[in-house]
């Protein structure tokens, strides 16, 4: 369930003018970038571990039906009920039905991007069920009526002062001060009764372990366990690509996930949930339901976007993306922002709705460099651009400009003539070595400067260089 993409350029434009947003993004992504670099430097085997992580994901993707059936068998044997949903609507229907049949009034939820992807928050509201987000960042954006702007730090676009205003209105009693520690205490107090009073707890899964039937969550706050233990029913929503063969394989991926996401070595709470409460258990839910969601994933299995199924949702690609760091997550308009979102949103919403996203990329390749499972993100973004061209989704101006360029590129004399005129004309707009504004290119130069060209094309300079060298060699020969 994703918002329409039509207004990407307008949204990006608005966000670029938002100075507070820029500060908020820089604080979080800058911090994440630095901490990841330190964690990777302290782990000399990181590159080998990364290749291994990729191989594990590729192995699972190649045998996905085998592992899904194994997981289903073992989870069922542990007492969980496994449901299958081909798309977001089926997933919403299954979860709503479980909640309504249980006569649930209050549902607590531990952050899961898949829940956002399938539009779970709206579905619960439509069913008249109170939903309480328990992850601190999700709590903040629920109060603000917003969507996540980052897959690891969903409220990273909000400053401390903005959070304080939200908490003062919603918390009883309101927090006494607006420093982060006081506000975290306030949320802890406010949410405690909700944890213990919920009828259903919904979590996602970072891994589905095939040989035990367990689902694995990782959190730093401890909200997942407080969400999944007290209620009568625990529902897990997970994409079918989350499988791993065994617990040991999950650990191999965890080493990559945590370092890439937060720069830590291990999340505070890494929990394997296997079935409902056992006879004699001191606590735990009576029922456990696991909803396995396809929603476009089997389509990716069959096309060039298959490597994207390796994604373990660490967020490193967006933390290192020059575009994301300028416009933030909301401008992307889908559930998933940044480079991974620009690849996934066209799968989920259709390319016609989201063709701007794969274009909003400089192809600098940093996302692929930091990806812990070696997803070739720029290649996949280029594949969407190609498909957009083939499916004639590119606007007429783009088609015309590219047609003109292609015509020139096939006629070298024309291309050279054009570039000779071009570089000389561009010099007229340069001030002190840089071009700050250009007619017809205001959208480009508003946020970037172009170095003033040298006045001669590469080919002209190359020829001159060759001629000079030939002359020199000739003179030396005459000596």
């Amino acid at each position, binding site marked *: 369930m994703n918002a329409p993409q039509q207004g990407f350029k307008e949204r990006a434009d608005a966000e670029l003018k938002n100075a507070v947003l820029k500060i908020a993004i820089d*604080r979080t992504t800058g911090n994440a970038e630095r901490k990841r670099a330190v964690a990777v430097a*302290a*782990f000399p*085997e990181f590159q080998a571990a990364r290749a*291994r992580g990729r191989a594990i994901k590729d192995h699972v993707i190649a*045998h*996905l*039906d*085998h592992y*899904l059936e194994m997981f289903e068998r073992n989870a069922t044997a*542990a007492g969980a009920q496994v449901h*299958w*949903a*081909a798309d977001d609507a089926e997933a919403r229907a299954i979860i709503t039905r479980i909640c309504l049949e249980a006569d649930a009034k209050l549902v607590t939820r531990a952050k899961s991007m898949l829940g956002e992807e399938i539009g779970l928050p709206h579905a619960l509201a439509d069913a008249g069920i109170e939903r309480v987000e328990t992850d*601190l*960042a999700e709590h903040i954006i629920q109060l603000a009526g917003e969507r996540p702007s980052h897959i690891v*730090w969903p*409220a*990273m676009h909000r*400053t*401390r002062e903005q959070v304080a205003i939200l908490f003062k209105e919603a918390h009883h009693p309101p927090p006494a001060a607006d420093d*982060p*520690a006081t506000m975290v*205490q306030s*949320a*802890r107090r406010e*949410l*405690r009764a909700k944890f213990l009073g919920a009828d259903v707890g919904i979590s996602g899964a970072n891994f589905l372990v095939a040989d035990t*039937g367990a689902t694995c969550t990782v959190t*730093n*706050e*401890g*909200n997942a*366990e*407080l969400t999944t*233990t007290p209620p009568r029913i625990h529902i897990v929503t997970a994409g*079918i690509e989350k499988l791993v063969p065994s*617990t*040991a394989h999950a650990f*191999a991926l965890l080493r990559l996930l945590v370092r890439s996401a937060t720069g830590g*070595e*291990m*999340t*505070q*709470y*890494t929990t*394997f*949930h*296997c*079935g409902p409460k*056992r006879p*004699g*258990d*001191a*606590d*735990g839910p009576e029922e456990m339901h696991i909803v396995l969601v396809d929603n476009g994933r*089997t*389509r990716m*299995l*069959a096309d060039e976007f298959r490597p994207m199924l390796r994604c373990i949702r660490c967020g490193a690609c967006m933390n290192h993306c020059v575009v994301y760091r300028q416009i933030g997550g909301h401008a992307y308009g889908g559930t998933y922002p940044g480079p991974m979102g620009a690849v996934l949103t066209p799968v989920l919403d259709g390319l016609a709705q989201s063709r701007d996203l794969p274009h909003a990329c400089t192809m600098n390749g940093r996302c692929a460099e930091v990806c812990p499972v070696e997803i070739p993100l720029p290649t996949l973004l280029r594949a969407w651009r190609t498909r957009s061209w083939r499916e004639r989704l590119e606007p007429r101006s783009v088609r015309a400009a590219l047609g003109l360029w292609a015509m020139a590129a096939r006629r070298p004399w024309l291309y050279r003539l054009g570039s000779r005129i071009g570089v000389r004309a561009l010099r007229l707009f340069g001030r002190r070595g840089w071009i700050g504004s250009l007619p017809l290119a205001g959208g480009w130069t508003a946020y970037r400067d172009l170095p003033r060209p040298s006045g001669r094309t590469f080919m002209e300079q190359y020829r001159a260089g060759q001629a000079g060298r030939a002359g020199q060699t000739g003179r030396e020969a005459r000596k």
Partner: protein
Amino acid sequence: MSARDRILAAIRAARPAPLPPAEAIAAEAAALLDAPESVRPWPVEAVLAAEFVRKASALGTSFDHLPDRAAIPLAVKRYLDTHGLPPALALQPAPALAALDWTDIDTHDAVAPDQTAALGLALWGIAETGSLVIHSGADAPILLSFLPLHHIVVLEERSLLPHLEDYAAAMQGAAQPRNAILITGPSGTTDIEGSYVRGAHGPGFLHVLMIGG
């Protein structure tokens, strides 16, 4: 056709060759765990206890080293006094803890929503990450580790494992509990402007009583 059948059919349609036999897939999966030392941090076997303390301390876990279990009540009292807490404790209903002499502390089984302090047992410690392992069970409520502000955990030094895989190996063939949890430091969050704050929803303090040596 059910959603299950449609999903499995789509997966099979995307694969050019038939699925290899289960044994071949299992062998390939096992090979992906070969030579673990090449894909994990340096070996730590030589100094397990020191490495565990170093890793866990860096994350904010505090330690007390005790000669044996009999020393636990006194160590707990010392901890509560140091933090200015009342001598009350939610106690994991495990025989090994119930058997101790609790005359100076008011202990109870139930964990209150605003519980100040609780004491539980860890099954293993993992030196690589400074993690404590707990399992749910009849004498091991999960909320005991999450509701209190101060979580005190007993760990036998002989239960230390070098790496994460060693825990997976220790569980090989054993029954998977409802919850198996690796606790790595006190609860924390960086959700407001990236500032690290302890005690988000779970315990703000994690104290380990390390037994033996």
